[in-house]
């Protein structure tokens, strides 16, 4: 009788139940694995053989066939070592009890039989739980990660010998306790907006951007503080809910980027270098892995030197910006990764950087400046609701010791306005004002007579385009929400008009 052990295959974030069947039959000694295994799975033969031998068990000298079912799904990664080894030991009668049934096995083996952590434990446990499985045997190192999911029993063990004693009922193992949720949130933040002197407009603009989920493009000379501002954006974003933390942690789990704590407790801030490739930014590879847009899920994606990014990489941002996820299609299927992030881009006003800086002379020709700006296509430019000029700071401003507003105060206002938006959009499946379509804009951003007249005047005086008109409405909705107001007032519109781009920058 072949033995049958439960495990899971990962396809992106999607976990598919995989059964590891091991059959030992008479014949010339051989060991073969079938069921679309990749190289790492093929190599598991050698690891399993040595691990079994070195843990004090006997490796059967017979014809061994391992089948990974279903046979049409690719099996990747070394986490099949453990189920294969357990399957062999069951089939050869070295594990006698039936405790192994209904347990999911994941883990990589070393030659000496030690269990090593594997990628993707969290998404597998999360999805397996949904399909009714509740017991997992994983390497000790991965146990905390798996135990994040409530209501499952996770057994974290260190080596194959322990596993065999556990499965034979010779050893009692307590399930890994779920870590207390409170230990993650309200972690002290290293950065704070209170440390930034001057740049009051930029701080206000960022508060508006975060409140309404608006993407923002910052334009300013080198040294104006664009990066400094961007790094602090996560400090005024609302705390993540536990579910949001899990979403982020899953992505980090399959990317193998989890650290000791095994949970990403604060919103991610990703700032890839501008030499990043298309696949690096949006995700890809023949075995698709998440790109920076997904690693920034629920957080901030900061693209410094925005026009220096490759054109195709920038254009590829359009889908995630629109849909909040990326879809990567390969020969053997399609993988979806969440990518709901706030895009913060920064650029210089010209190649040398000192246009618009009154103290320094710009040495770019008009042609150079236009070429620089032309690297940003119209559709990408329109994705930014806020175009913000970050002026260089004077010496007095940099040396002032005045205490400015702290991140915590700003975050309170943001959280309040987010709550208003959530309630308003409940029936429409939206979360923030930035997602308002033109049709819904009319519904939620209606103006009074005086406001309409003001906008007519402003459109004429300030040369507004139809698009920047819509953006202004969206932003004024957010500004009104920050104030807790029901209706959009003149002052809201007037402030929103300050956050529009200007043709004089080009």
């Amino acid at each position, binding site marked *: 009788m072949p033995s049958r052990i439960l495990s899971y295959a990962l396809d992106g974030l999607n976990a598919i139940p995989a059964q590891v069947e091991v059959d030992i039959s008479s014949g010339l000694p051989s060991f073969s694995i079938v069921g679309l295994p990749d190289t790492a799975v093929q190599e598991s033969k050698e690891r399993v053989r040595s691990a079994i031998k070195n843990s004090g068990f006997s490796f059967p000298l017979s014809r061994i066939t391992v089948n990974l079912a279903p046979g049409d799904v690719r099996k990747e990664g070394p986490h099949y070592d453990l189920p294969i080894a357990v399957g062999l030991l069951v089939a050869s009668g070295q594990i006698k009890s039936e405790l192994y049934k209904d347990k999911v096995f994941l883990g990589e083996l070393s030659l000496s039989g030690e269990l090593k952590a594997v990628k993707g434990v969290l998404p597998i446990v999360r999805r397996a739980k949904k399909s009714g499985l509740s017991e997992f045997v994983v390497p000790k190192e991965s146990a905390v990660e798996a135990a994040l999911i409530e209501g499952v029993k996770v057994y974290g063990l260190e080596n194959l010998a322990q596993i065999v004693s556990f499965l034979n009922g010779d050893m009692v193992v307590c399930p890994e306790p779920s870590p207390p949720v409170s230990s993650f949130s309200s972690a002290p933040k290293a950065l704070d907006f209170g440390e930034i002197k*001057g*740049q*009051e*407009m930029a*701080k*206000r603009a960022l508060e*508006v951007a975060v409140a309404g989920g608006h993407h923002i493009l910052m334009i300013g000379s080198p040294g104006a503080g664009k990066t400094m501002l961007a790094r602090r954006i996560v400090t005024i974003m609302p705390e993540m809910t536990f579910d949001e933390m899990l979403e982020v942690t899953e992505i980090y789990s399959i990317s193998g980027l989890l650290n000791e704590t095994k949970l990403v407790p604060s919103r991610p801030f990703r700032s890839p270098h501008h030499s990043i490739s298309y696949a690096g930014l949006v995700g890809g590879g023949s075995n698709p892995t998440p790109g920076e847009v997904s690693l920034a899920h629920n957080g901030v994606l900061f693209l410094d030197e925005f026009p220096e990014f490759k054109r195709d990489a920038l254009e590829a941002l359009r889908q995630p910006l629109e849909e909040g996820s990326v879809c990567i299609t390969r020969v053997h299927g399609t993988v979806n990764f969440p990518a709901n992030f706030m895009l913060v881009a920064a650029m210089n006003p010209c190649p040398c950087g000192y246009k*618009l*800086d*009154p103290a320094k*002379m*710009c040495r770019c020709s*008009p042609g150079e400046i236009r070429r620089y700006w032309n690297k940003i296509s119209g559709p990408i430019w329109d994705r930014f609701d806020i175009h913000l*000029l970050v*002026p260089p*700071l*004077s010496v007095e*401003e940099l040396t002032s010791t005045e205490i400015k507003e702290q991140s915590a105060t700003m975050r309170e206002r943001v959280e309040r306005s987010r709550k208003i938006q959530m309630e308003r959009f409940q029936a429409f499946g939206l979360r923030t004002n930035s997602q308002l379509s033109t049709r819904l804009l009319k519904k939620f951003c209606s103006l009074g007579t005086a406001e309409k007249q*003001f906008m007519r*005047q*402003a459109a004429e*005086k*300030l040369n507004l385009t139809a698009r920047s008109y819509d953006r202004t409405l969206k932003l004024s909705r957010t*500004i009104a929400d920050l104030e807790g107001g029901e209706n959009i007032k*003149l*002052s*809201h*519109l*007037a*402030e929103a*008009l*300050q956050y529009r781009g*200007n*043709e*004089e*920058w*080009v």
Partner: protein
Amino acid sequence: MGLASESSLIALSLLALYISPRNLSRILSEYDLEELLLKKPWGSLPLSEETRARLEKIDWKQVEQIAGWCRKNEVKIIQRGPSYPEKLSRLADPPLVLYLWGEQCFQDLAVAVVGTRNPTNYGREVTYRITRDLAEAGLVIVSGMARGLDSVAHQAALETGGKTIAVLGSGFQNIYPPENRALALKIKGSGCLISEYPPTAPPNQWHFPARNRIIASLSSGVVVIEAGENSGALITCDFALEIGVDVYAVPGSILSATSKGCHRLIKEGAKLVESAQDILEDMGLQPAPEKRVEPDLSPEEKEVLKLLPTDPTPLEELIKQLNREAGTILAVLTMLEVKGLIRSLPGKYYVRRF
């Protein structure tokens, strides 16, 4: 030469793109225009291969195309004669042909406002103020529609409803710089664009110094606001002095590279001006009565307006001085701008309009 047909004028201006006036008149004394375009005797002229190849392409078909374009777009073609601006005959080499787009206003008193293509915010503001006041006093503003101060001057004139003339260094089909196409259309509606080059002419480098002579001679005075040491604005002044047109210069900081040219002009005897009043007085004109209207202002708006100095001030400075929330100040500034009481300058600078 008597009055010529439209086609021959176009042909002449096409030839003048490549042949110097002296050579052109010499060859026209030997051949008439019809013969010239048929026989193409360019071999007798000292020309480069490239130029000769370009000249080979000029024929009556091309001329007719241009004539058709001019008719369709209501471009007038002016030759020496009754409708030719008399002021231009002060020049040693007045243009043979003038293309005119819009409504001519050569009889009116005009002032040229010229300056650097890379102005500081100071230069922008001064240009705006002086031009606005000159235009309000009824003067036509002449400039070259280049980037920088030229564009500011045209815009300021248009804003007050005054007339303005843009003298181009290219043909009307190749408006240069291209970002000024919208501005060109506005100027056409409230003054005119003129060029001595046929509509198809590209913006060649050497056209710009040459068009400066037209700017100078159409005006009764040339105001230079910011000019570096080698600025094209200084060429305009040289032409102005040659034909006896007054030159006015606005001083700047002695540390600023963009004011060096103006300071040199002042040292050489140009009149130093601080406001449009100085120019108007010198020309024996009265400034327009102030027609400022005081719109309704909220207490906050009044407070910001009171604090705003007359020189361009960065936004951050305003926020610091007013000690209010950034959001409130931003809103107030937009309101004041829409009400037309303040102006914003590149780099988030603000300045009072009055």
